[in-house]
C-alpha cells in the first residue's frame, strides 16, 4: 500500500504524475498573463482556486470511490459482521485470514488456478497475439478483415464468450465432441464438468479474447517503430528474425511493459468465464470468483469476503508497483 502512495509523491519533483504536469503548465501560462511591473506572481487567487478544484475534485472522487472503500474493506476484513446492525460488528483479529488460509478448501486451488491462468496467458495467449500482429503487419491481402476478425472477441464481454464456448464444449451436442466423434457416447469429454479439464477449456476461451487484445496493441506498436531502424538492420545484413528480435521488439519496449501489466492484471481479474460456466466451483476456483461468492448475494460473509478481497488487492499491487517503478523510474532518468 504505502509503496504506491509514496511513489508518485516521491516523483513529485519530476513532471511525472498527471496532476503535476498540469500544474506545471498552469504555472507557466498564469505567470505570463498576470505579470505586473516585472514582478512575476506565480499564482493568482483565481489560479489557486482553479487549481484547487482541478486537484481537489479528482482527489475527492478518488478518495470517495477508491480509497474509502479500500480502507473499509481492509478494516472489515478484521471483523465479524452480519451486515445488519452496526452493534453486531465485532472485532475478529486475523481470524478471517486464518480461516481463509486454513479452513477454506477452495482458497489454495484458487491461488493455483490464478497462477496457472497467468502462466497460460503469458506463455500462450500473449505470444499468440504477438504472432498475429507480426503476421498482419506484413501488408498481406485482406489484413483489415483479419484484424477485425481477431479483434471481435475483445469487443464481446467475457460472459458472452462463456456462452459462445458452451456451444463448442457441450458434452452431448457440442462441436468439439462432434469433431472428435464422441458426442452422445459415454466416451464424450465433459469439457466443463471434468475438474481436470475445465480450467484448460476456460483458459482456451480466454486466450481467444486475450490474443486479439494483445494483437491490436502490438499492431499499434509495430506501426510506431521507426522504419529506418529496419532499413539499418537490413543494411547491416540482419535477417527477418534477427531484425525482429534484436531491433523491432526491443524498440517496442513501452508496449511490452503495457502488455506485461495487462497480462498480469487479466489473469488476476479473470472472472466472467468461470462464473458463466459454473460460478467458479468444481475445478474453476479463482480468487475473484471467491470474493464475489463471499461478498455478493445470499452467501455473504462480510469478514471472510473482505479478507479475500484484501489478499487479492495485495497480490494485484505487486504488478502495479512494478509498473509504476518502471514507468516513473524511466522518466526520472530521462
Amino acid at each position, binding site marked *: 500500500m504505502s509503496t504506491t502512495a509514496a511513489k508518485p509523491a516521491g516523483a513529485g519533483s519530476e513532471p511525472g504524475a498527471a496532476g503535476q504536469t498540469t500544474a506545471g503548465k498552469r504555472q507557466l501560462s498564469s505567470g505570463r*498573463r498576470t505579470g505586473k511591473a516585472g514582478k512575476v506572481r506565480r499564482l493568482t487567487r*483565481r489560479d489557486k*482556486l*482553479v487549481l484547487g*478544484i*482541478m486537484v481537489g*475534485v*479528482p482527489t*475527492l*472522487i478518488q478518495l*470517495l*470511490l477508491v480509497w474509502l472503500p479500500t480502507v473499509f474493506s481492509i478494516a472489515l476484513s478484521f471483523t*465479524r*459482521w*452480519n*451486515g*445488519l*446492525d452496526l452493534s453486531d460488528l465485532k472485532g*475478529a483479529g486475523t*481470524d*478471517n485470514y486464518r*480461516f481463509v488460509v*486454513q*479452513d*477454506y*478448501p*477452495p482458497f489454495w486451488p484458487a491461488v493455483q488456478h490464478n497462477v496457472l491462468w497467468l502462466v497460460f496467458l503469458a506463455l500462450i495467449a500473449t505470444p499468440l497475439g504477438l504472432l498475429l500482429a507480426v503476421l498482419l503487419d506484413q501488408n498481406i491481402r485482406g489484413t483489415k478483415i483479419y484484424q477485425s476478425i481477431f479483434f471481435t472477441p475483445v469487443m464481446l464481454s467475457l460472459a458472452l464468450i462463456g456462452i459462445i464456448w458452451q456451444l463448442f464444449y457441450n*458434452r*452431448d451436442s457440442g462441436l468439439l465432441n462432434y469433431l472428435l466423434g464422441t458426442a452422445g457416447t459415454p466416451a464424450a469429454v*465433459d*469439457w*466443463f*464438468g*471434468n*475438474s481436470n479439464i475445465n480450467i484448460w477449456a476456460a483458459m482456451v476461451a480466454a486466450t481467444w479474447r486475450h490474443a486479439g487484445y494483445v494483437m491490436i496493441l502490438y499492431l499499434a506498436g509495430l506501426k510506431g517503430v521507426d522504419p529506418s531502424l529496419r532499413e539499418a538492420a537490413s543494411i547491416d545484413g540482419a535477417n527477418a528474425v534477427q531484425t525482429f528480435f534484436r531491433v523491432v521488439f526491443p524498440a517496442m519496449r513501452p508496449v511490452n511493459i503495457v502488455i506485461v501489466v495487462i497480462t498480469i492484471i487479466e489473469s488476476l481479474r479473470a472472472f466472467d468465464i468461470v462464473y458463466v460456466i*459454473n*460460478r467458479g*466451483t*468444481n475445478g474453476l*476456483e479463482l480468487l475473484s470468483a471467491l470474493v464475489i*461468492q*463471499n461478498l*455478493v*448475494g*445470499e*452467501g*455473504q*460473509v*462480510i*469478514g*471472510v469476503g473482505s479478507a479475500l478481497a484484501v489478499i487479492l488487492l495485495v497480490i494485484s499491487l505487486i504488478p502495479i508497483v512494478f509498473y509504476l517503478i518502471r514507468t516513473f523510474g524511466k522518466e526520472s532518468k530521462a
Partner: protein
Amino acid sequence: MAANLDPFQSAHSAGPGRRTILKTLGLGAAGLAGIPLLAGCTGGSGTAPGASSNSLTFGSGSSDDVPKAAYKAVTDAFTKKTGITVATNVVPHNDFQNKINSYLQGSPDDAFTWFAGYRMQYYAGKGLLAPVDDVWDKIGSNFSDAMKKASTGPDGKMYLVPNYNYPWGFFYRKSFWAEKGYAVPKTFDELKTLATKMKSDGIVPIGFADKDGWPAMGTFDYINMRLNGYQFHVDLTAHKESWDQKKVSDVFDTWKALLPFQDPNALGQTWQDAAKALEAKKTGMYLLGSFVTQQFTDPAVLADIDFFPFPEIAVEGTDAVEAPIDGLLLSKKGGDNKAAHDFLAFMGTAEGQNAYASVDSSNIATVKGADTSKFSPLNKKCADTIANAKHISQFLDRDALPAMANNVMIPALQSFIKDGTVDVKNLEAQAKTLYAAQ
C-alpha cells in the same frame, strides 16, 4: 462550487470553454459523489405509512412472468373483496434475495414474498419482521401442523403465511418402468437392488446434475432425514449439532453406496439436462423437486411422469418430505398496518390461494380446501404427499445459513461427487466461523 466560477468566467474571457468543462466536471463529480450516498438509503419506495388502513405496499420477488401474473391475480382479488388497494413492487428475484438485508433495514414494503426456514427465522430473531399471530388465529385451521411449524419463528410466534410449495421425490416414466418391469422401491435396499438391475439393463439408474451446486443438497437432505430424523436435519442446519460427528459421516457413507448409480456426468450438467435425459429414457429415475415437470413440454410425456418419495432407511419411515414453502411475511413497518394483516389473512385462505393457482399451476397450494379440480394426477399425488407428511423440510439452502449452504456445502458436495470423500472436520471448522459471524 460551480456557482463561484461564474464571476470569473465573465471577468476574464481567457477560456470560457475550459471553465464550462470544469463546471460540468464539478457537477458531474457532485453527482458521482451522490451515488453511494443515495445507494445507502435502499428500498426508497417511501410509500404510505402504516397508519392508513385502506392501502398497503407489497414487495414481490416473483419476477418471472407466470408467478408475477399470479400474484397480480391475488392482489386484484383482494382489492375486489375488501376495497383495500395494493401497490406491488416487483423486483427481479435474484436481486430481491441478494439485497434482502438492506431491503429490510431500509424502507421495506408492508408485506413481501419470502420462504420458510432458517432465513425467515433469522430475520424474525433480529426483529426485522412483524409477528402475525392475529392472522393465524383466523387462518390456523386452514393449515396442517407441519405448515404451522414451518411458519413459526424462534420466539414461538407466527411469522409466515404459506402460499405454495413443491415436494422433492424420485420422478420416473411410468411406461418405461412398466415395460422393463421395475417396481417402486420402498426401502433403501430395494432402491439399490433396483438400481443394480437398471445398470445391468444398460441405463443410468439415477439421473443427477450438480453443475449449479445446489441440486445435490436434495440427496444429502433426504439421506440425512431418513438416517437421523427430521429434528437432526433442523438442528444440524441451524448448527445446533456439530457437523463433525458420526451421524454426518454416516450420511456420506450411505450416499457412497448410491454414488455408482448416479449419473457420472453430474458435474457437467444442469437439472434441465438431467430432466431431458429422464425424458429420453436414458436415466431410470431422477430425484428433484416437482418443478422438474416444467421441462416436459410434451403433454404425452408429462402424463407419463410419476413420482415416489425417497425410500425409508432407518428412522421415521418416509414421514419427512422436502417441500420448500414460499409465502408472505410482514416487515416490521407492515406490522402496524391493519390492511397488511388483512392481506396476509387473505393469502391464507382457499380463496386467495386459488386466485394464485389459477394462473400458476406448477405449484401446490398449501391451504386445506384449495381447488384441486384442475389438478393432474401427478399434482394430486404431490399434494397428498405433502398433506400426509409429518415433517416438512425446506431444503438445505433454506434451512441453513446461506453462506454455509452456498460457500461450504456446494464445494464439499461437488468434491464428494467427484471422489467420494468429504472432510467433516473441515465442514465443522467452516460452520463454526460462519455461524459465529451472524
